[in-house]
């Protein structure tokens, strides 16, 4: 088949009302009455399975009971005890594969208690109503800790260290703190500049100083930090993106999905964002879903996700896949990119090849292809670690990511790490928060204990 010679990428595909509508809160908060009724569904389970399933081990039955007893502020404190980013996690956690999957009401009637929305109810109420931070700092210890990266891992670590009375300096390469909470999470999951409000809330504890625009490896070195500070925590995330490794990848219209989402999150005026009419997203994770959904919401007409394996292999949960599908995104499984068609420097088509698993379980192309006309191709095939900034310090890696022990200690005695940049994690906000918390406790033990 022949592919057209021009591509159609433009802004203002929709009316301004449509933009506001499309990017409003995807799961509107519960009203106070809804929260009471939903909270009453919780059985206050013994040794609650939801709590075991929560990476940060929030005492879920207790916080729900406090909502039910008319004490949402106390409920929020229970949440913040274990997860200081409980507000963001309430918005972005894939609860369908975490706490809510484990809820006994899922087993009973396929309708778990809406734990995520209840958590949001409690934390929102707290942040709207309470003037003061829920924790007080312990007496100053005189210890100084450097945290690199102000993403969920770094913020969580800094907060826990500050409560123990330590002084923390965060070095953050970007203009704003928050990490992917600010630059990566889909716009309709965190509206009204919540990420920045949360950074403010977390740092209200005191003793945390964020230095924005300071990059490790450019403005400071790891050796320097390790000698100037009593301990260092690395929460660098995954700065690189995987490449398709294909001819035409640098053509106009071939876009890194994480960048696309980041630009969208920072946009003052969504209608000014350009988007193609026909889009193919390559990948099968949350990033692929988010990019597909958001391009659709920006006015793209045909959006297809091409994933090289089957539905059951996708990293995005079934729920997220359905969400995309009900927004009109087509998901095509067992399809991998074969070649890009470029005309006048812009991508105009993509040929996908059908795949299958051979007898040994290896994925291979079948030779059968489909060619789609496209205006944009989004790459969402995973982010990559960057060991560059670690140069100089002797830190062991594992598949490019930092190796840590149970306590999130690296091979360097004064350096800890957590979040997406370490090996073996799950690349979720809540897991990063837990890493930061564990590391902070370990650092505290090492410095004081």
């Amino acid at each position: 088949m022949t592919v057209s010679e021009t591509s159609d990428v433009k802004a203002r595909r929709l009316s301004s009302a449509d933009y506001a509508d499309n990017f409003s809160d995807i799961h509107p908060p519960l009203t106070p009455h809804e929260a009471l009724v939903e909270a009453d569904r919780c059985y206050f389970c013994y040794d609650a399975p939801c709590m075991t399933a929560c990476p940060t081990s929030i005492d879920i039955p207790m916080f729900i009971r406090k909502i039910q007893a008319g004490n949402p502020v106390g409920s929020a404190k229970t949440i913040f005890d274990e997860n200081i980013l409980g507000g963001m996690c309430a918005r972005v956690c894939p609860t369908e594969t975490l706490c809510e999957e484990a809820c006994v009401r899922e087993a009973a009637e396929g309708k778990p208690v809406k734990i995520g929305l209840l958590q949001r109810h409690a934390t929102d109420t707290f942040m709207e109503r309470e003037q003061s931070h829920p924790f007080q700092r312990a007496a100053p210890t005189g210890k100084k800790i450097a945290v690199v990266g102000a993403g969920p891992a770094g913020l969580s670590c800094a907060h826990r260290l500050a409560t123990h009375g330590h002084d923390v300096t965060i070095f953050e390469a970007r203009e704003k703190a928050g990490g992917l909470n600010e630059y990566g999470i889909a716009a309709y999951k965190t509206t009204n500049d919540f990420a920045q409000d949360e950074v403010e809330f977390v740092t209200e504890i005191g003793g945390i100083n964020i230095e924005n625009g300071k990059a490790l490896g450019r403005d400071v070195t790891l050796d320097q930090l390790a000698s100037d500070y009593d301990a260092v925590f690395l929460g660098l995330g995954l700065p690189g993106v995987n490449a398709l490794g294909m001819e035409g990848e640098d053509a106009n219209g071939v876009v890194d999905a994480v960048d696309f989402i980041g630009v969208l999150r920072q946009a003052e005026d969504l209608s000014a964002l350009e988007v193609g009419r026909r889009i193919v997203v390559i990948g099968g994770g949350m990033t692929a879903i988010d990019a597909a959904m958001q391009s659709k919401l920006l006015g793209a007409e045909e959006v297809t996700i091409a994933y090289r394996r089957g539905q059951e292999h996708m990293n995005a949960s079934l729920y997220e896949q359905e969400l995309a599908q009900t927004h009109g995104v087509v998901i095509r499984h067992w399809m991998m990119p074969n070649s890009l068609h470029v005309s006048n420097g812009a991508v105009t088509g993509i040929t996908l090849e059908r795949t299958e698993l051979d007898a040994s379980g290896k994925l291979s192309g079948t030779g059968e292809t489909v060619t789609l006309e496209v205006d944009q191709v989004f790459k969402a095939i995973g982010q990559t670690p960057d060991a560059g900034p670690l140069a100089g310090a002797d830190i062991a890696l594992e598949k490019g990511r930092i190796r840590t022990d149970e306590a999130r200690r690296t091979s360097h005695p004064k350096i800890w790490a957590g979040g997406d940049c370490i090996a073996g994690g799950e690349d979720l906000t809540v897991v990063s928060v837990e890493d930061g918390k564990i590391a902070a406790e370990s650092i505290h033990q090492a410095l004081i204990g």
Partner: protein
Amino acid sequence: MADLSTNFLGIKSPNPFWLASAPPTDKAYNVERAFEAGWGGVVWKTLGEAGPPVVNVNGPRYGAIWGPDRRLLGLNNIELITDRDLEINLREITEVKKRWPDRAMIVSIMVPCDEQSWKAILPRVEDTGADGIELNFGCPHGMSERGMGASVGQVPEYIQMVAEWCKQYCRLPVIVKLTPNITDIRYPARAAKAGGADAVSLINTISSIVSIDLDNFAPMPTIDGKGSHGGYCGPAVKPIALNMVAEIARDAETRGLPISGIGGIQTWRDAAEYIALGCGTVQVCTAAMTYGFKIVQEMTQGLSDWMDEKGYATLADFQGRAVPNVTDWQHLNLNYITKAKIDQDLCIKCGRCHIACEDTSHQAITSMVDGVRHFEVMDDECVGCNLCVNVCPVDDCITMVEMTEGTDPRTGRPIDPDYANWTTHPNNPMAKQAAE
């Protein structure tokens, strides 16, 4: 289809559902609507003596207890008897009864505790054509401070005295409505019977404070910063009322005395329970005040369907059937042994049964077996108390299973198939020796 018609003291009604004396029966407008909706009868809102009508508060009259979805569980009120003019009430009663001859029309009365007052009002009520009278000896607030209502109902001698006056000055059947605000309901019931009353009805409302407003530190409902105890009713009071009805139904002195059951009746099932305890009719107030008159259609239909299913053609077929099964603790069979059993297929593993038994009962339910969540009853620790059944959120997931043979693994004693109770138990110092 089952026949729901009743004949209570000679008063006929097409079904046993009467509206209790309260706001729903305060005027012709409501009562007409009630009859249109299908109620079998009404007890007209309590009339007082001639003269200036009583005065209600002009602020809130109700306090409430709710479930989380604001389902009304209990209601309390500080309302008084009717505050409408006696003449108007009597005229309306006459007119409504004339229009609805097949429905029961009972008139509730409360006047001061002297013969003259009763002698004055009774003939006027009789003239309305009403089918019977109900004596309000129950209102716990306001009127009781004036020596009426519950303050009469708490003194059996007064009950008997007033009942006698009513029988003397009036040809209508007399129903004495009892107050639950008393330690032993059998005494006022016996007094009513001794006074010649034809029946008792119960319960009236229970003295109560439903809540304290934690901003103003005053009871609800609050009138200008103060609150007073009110009368409690609604679903929450049914257990108390059922017990009182049962006490009267099985008391040697009052057995067989007709009873109109009242208190927390919300559905046909509640009504069937009252009837099974011997009641000839039932009265409803809060449920109607919560949902409107239409609920009577659920009640009549539900009762009729259940009776059809069970093969009961008339109410008499099951009326009082539960009375012989109400007994004293000392007569319960001590050789009846049960153990809880958990249906593992139904269990959703919430662990409620475990923690209830572990923290507050007999440590008889596991939480973990071979490293996984698993809830199972250990027969050698289970006393059969039933707590786990009550806390389990899944229907029929835990059942109590009777042991009929072998040895009780908890006590090590063999199961004795014969009945034996406390009266002859060796540990009972007052155990009655066998006769021979």
